[in-house]
């Protein structure tokens, strides 16, 4: 193999594999046919042109319909995959709901009326469902600016506690003395049970990866003490990384599909578009749902927690309809394009 041929072969690697299988040898032949006698390497212009054209085949879908389709599927898949990135960090970090009973009963000075844990079937289920529980809707108004909680709490309810505000203030002093980082005594938000004119009703504290929330009932005759693990670090970074990596991969795959579809006869192309349409609609609608549900309602004092980044994936498990439509529609398109490709070769 000549030096020139080797150079051309290397440059042709810029083209996607499916294109090289179809055209690689033919293009190489043409390039060598067109070479000057005695030429040992491609000119810079020629090399740059081959690289650009090859990358265009990888990253620029043909026709505006191809671009729109690739865009919708890519953004949907990237958002869902960002949920997978978030899940990976949660699964590795594996935060556990801390033990609460002894500390809580000692702060309240009595036995609880009842106790319960936040129940979630899985991490994904927690990411999907925790906002509907509304536990953190007034979070931003509770005066706490420290680490954020993982929404997997353990709660103890004390009813008929006389002078609950005094118990709350005393709890703050005891926690501070025991080395806890304590937030201010806060009245809580307008959504809190304390009410805007009531006395201070909420306190957050943190020590050794455990977050404590003590709140007083609005009639000041009861206390709720909750414990949460601190949310894992790096969830946002993992979600963004999965979004980017997954997005680039899916964009390339969709570019490939669009190129294949563009090579089929017009009747097949129309059928592919018809079958692909439900997927495109589902991608658009589901992406809107994912993003809008993930971000807390701006009319509340909720904040974006690390658990929320799992929502786009959790949503697919909880409501598999959209993913089902998208998958079956894309598989049908792939089958049609593949079959037409085989016919064309035969």
């Amino acid at each position, binding site marked *: 193999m000549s030096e020139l041929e080797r150079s051309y072969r290397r440059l042709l690697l810029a083209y996607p594999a499916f294109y090289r299988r179809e*055209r690689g*040898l*033919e*293009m*190489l*032949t*043409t*390039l*060598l*046919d*067109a070479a000057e006698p005695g030429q040992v390497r491609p000119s810079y212009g*020629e090399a740059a*042109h*081959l690289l*650009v*054209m*090859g990358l265009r085949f990888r990253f620029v879908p*043909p026709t505006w319909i191809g671009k729109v389709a690739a865009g919708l599927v890519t953004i949907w898949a990237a958002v869902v995959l960002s949920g997978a990135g978030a899940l990976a960090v949660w699964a590795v970090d594996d935060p556990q709901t801390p033990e609460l009973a002894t500390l809580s009963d000692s702060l309240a000075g009595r036995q609880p009326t009842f106790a319960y844990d936040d129940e979630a079937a899985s991490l994904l289920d927690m990411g999907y469902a925790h906002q509907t529980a509304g536990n953190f809707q007034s979070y931003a108004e509770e005066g706490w600016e420290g680490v954020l909680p993982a929404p997997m709490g353990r709660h103890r309810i004390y009813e008929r506690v006389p002078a609950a505000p005094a118990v709350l203030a005393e709890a703050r002093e005891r926690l501070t003395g025991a080395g806890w980082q304590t937030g201010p005594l806060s009245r809580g938000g307008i959504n809190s049970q304390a009410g805007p004119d009531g006395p201070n009703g909420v306190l957050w504290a943190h020590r050794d990866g455990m977050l404590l929330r003590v709140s007083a009932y609005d009639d000041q005759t009861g206390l709720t003490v909750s414990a949460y693990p601190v949310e894992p670090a790096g969830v946002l970074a993992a979600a963004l990384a999965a979004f980017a990596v997954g997005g680039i991969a899916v964009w390339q795959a969709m570019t490939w599909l669009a190129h294949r579809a*563009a*090579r*089929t*006869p017009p009747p097949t192309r129309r059928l592919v578009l018809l079958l692909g349409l439900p997927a495109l609609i589902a991608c658009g609608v589901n992406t809107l749902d994912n993003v809008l549900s993930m971000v807390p309602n701006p009319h509340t004092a909720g904040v974006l927690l690390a658990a929320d980044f799992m929502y786009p994936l959790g949503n697919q498990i909880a409501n598999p309809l959209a993913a089902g439509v998208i998958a079956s529609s894309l598989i049908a398109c792939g089958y049609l394009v593949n079959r037409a490709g085989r016919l064309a070769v035969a």
Partner: protein
Amino acid sequence: MTMQEPTFFILTALVRTPLHGYGIIKAVEELSGGRVMLKAGTLYAALDRLAADGLIVVDREEAVSGRLRRYYVLSDEGRAVLETAVERLQSNAQVAATRLREAFGFIGGVQHV
């Protein structure tokens, strides 16, 4: 739809004459009087599009000693499209020539042989 010049010359080159890649590049250069010099990347992007639209078809393949030459030729559909393009160019040229002649009485600098 207006046809771009490279496409126009590729189709023209393939009228009744099956040509492979380098053959098309040479023919297009010659037919265009050296104005259109196709690069391989551009040529194959154009051939893909023309083949997908059914304007050209593969006439035959020659695979010899690690080389592959596909010969393309204009299809009936391609011939119809090229004829339409030619009529359009002719009528465009005629309109422009008439206007120039009306304005100046002659077309300056153009020698009719």
